[in-house]
């Protein structure tokens, strides 16, 4: 973990209520896709946890959905604004477990961490498939970004306004058969549906309300087959076989 200041280098609307923010600063604590940052916002007592969507030596990219006051405040930030951020939090995904044909399944605001993972898996010469689920066409983001990495992208929308109509799990059944591993992040009901449908092992990334974000308060603890784990520290990524719903 590292605490440092970052400067907003970009904050643009990507899709309905969804923004991409680029932060410039020291990203050296970020080690793995699936890790998150914890952002202090003026006027809010607790920080906001947001996944790292991509990073380079001097920058971190995040994608966030405005769902409440904190994320709405973030949407109002402009280039040059400064933020105090804790970086390098959480365990992240383990790309080594993927086999040669991993399937990435993301829903809405759960998609961002899968982007850095996809990038890593492509670098490792894997054949990567991604099912990205949204409610409607207005919400769709990053389909081209995943595709330009060389990922085979399948979009699903609940109302069928673009891509395959239905849920991500419907596409799992129809479009994918011989995947070697699943990586999933999204709302909990989606994770559970993917868990039930997936025929391979996998890693699932969870959300929980956090106090500290670095393991001190036990605010985010959840039960697993191997005892209690802190989503902020031993998570947010859990192995399929240890998850207790």
């Amino acid at each position, binding site marked *: 973990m590292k605490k440092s200041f970052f400067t907003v280098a970009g904050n643009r609307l990507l899709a309905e209520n969804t923004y991409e923010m680029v932060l410039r600063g020291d990203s050296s604590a970020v080690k793995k896709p699936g890790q998150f940052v914890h952002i202090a916002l003026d006027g809010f007592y607790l*920080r906001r946890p947001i996944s790292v969507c991509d990073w380079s030596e001097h920058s971190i990219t995040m994608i966030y959905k405005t769902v409440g006051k904190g994320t709405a405040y973030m949407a109002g930030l402009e280039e040059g604004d400064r933020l105090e951020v804790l970086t390098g939090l959480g365990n992240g995904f383990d790309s080594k477990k993927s086999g040669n044909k991993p399937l990435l399944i993301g829903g809405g605001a759960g998609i961002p961490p899968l982007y850095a993972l996809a990038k890593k898996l492509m670098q490792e010469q894997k054949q990567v498939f991604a099912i990205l689920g949204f409610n409607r066409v207005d919400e769709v983001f990053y389909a081209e970004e995943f595709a330009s990495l060389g990922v085979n992208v399948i979009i699903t929308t609940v109302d069928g306004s673009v891509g395959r109509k239905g849920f991500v799990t419907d596409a799992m059944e129809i479009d994918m058969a011989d995947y070697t591993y699943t990586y999933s992040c999204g709302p909990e009901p989606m994770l559970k549906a993917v868990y039930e449908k997936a025929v391979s092992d996998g890693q699932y990334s969870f959300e929980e*309300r956090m106090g*500290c974000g*670095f393991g*001190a*308060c*036990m*605010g985010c603890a959840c039960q697993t087959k191997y005892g209690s784990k802190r989503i902020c520290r031993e998570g947010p990524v859990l192995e399929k076989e240890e998850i207790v719903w």
Partner: protein
Amino acid sequence: MVDTSINLSGLHLSNPIIPASGTFGFGYEFAEIYDINILGSFSFKGTTKEPRFGNAAPRIAETHAGMLNAIGLQNPGIDKVISEELPKLKQVFSKPVIANISGFSLEEYAYCCEKIDKEEQVGIIEVNISCPNVHEGGMSFGTSPESAAAVTKAVKAVTSKPVYMKLSPNVTDIAEIAAACEEAGADGISLINTLTGMRIDLKRKKPILNNVTGGLSGPAVLPIALRMVWEVYKKVSIPIIGMGGVSTAEDVIEMMLAGATAVSVGAANLKDPFASKNIIESLPDAMKELGIKKLTDIIGGAHNA
């Protein structure tokens, strides 16, 4: 040079800052980012006889200038704390530590305190009496002078270490309870624990916390904590560890002027992992600014009319 050192029941502390129980784990997470030996001491996570997972999520809710928590005393149980946590803690912290103990019956309090009494690194036992008494209808031990005194006696009987009773602010007259603890043999008083509160999710129209209610802490509670430390200081002569909303060196000084000998920092550590370090580092300058040479000179200073 200013003197920030204090004495707490015979323990010499290089400064009065003691991270509060439940906000500092067993110290490791903080030891990764700074040398925690700069602390006066710290109070480790509330420990019970049996291991506890605590309450279901969500356990945290944000508030104006603070937070609610409903962790529900998650801890690995006294045996594991002694066999696993303390040896690890010893590697990152070389000073005496404060053992925070909780229980749901007099026997559980006594059981834990008797065990922890044998641990060399424990300098003080801080007994949290905010927990419900399962044998007497679930009312918290800390809500009546009689049950507070009963816990004090039960733990004093099994340990020779200094015992600080940690009081709940959710009472009508906290000074009366402090006095009952002193009368029963307590060596000091810690206050305040969190104030019971709740928040409701406007979209779901339901309480945010799964437990419905939780404990409020953070800057929002500082004035209440100061008032309570003030009242307890007037009533008892044993030392006070004051806490509740402390986030700056100035807050520490205010707490000591109200009557605290040492000061705990809780939620501030969660908001900023460097909070306790920053407070310790800025304390000498804050003292100089206010013309304070020796911190112990100001304890209860605001009471001198």
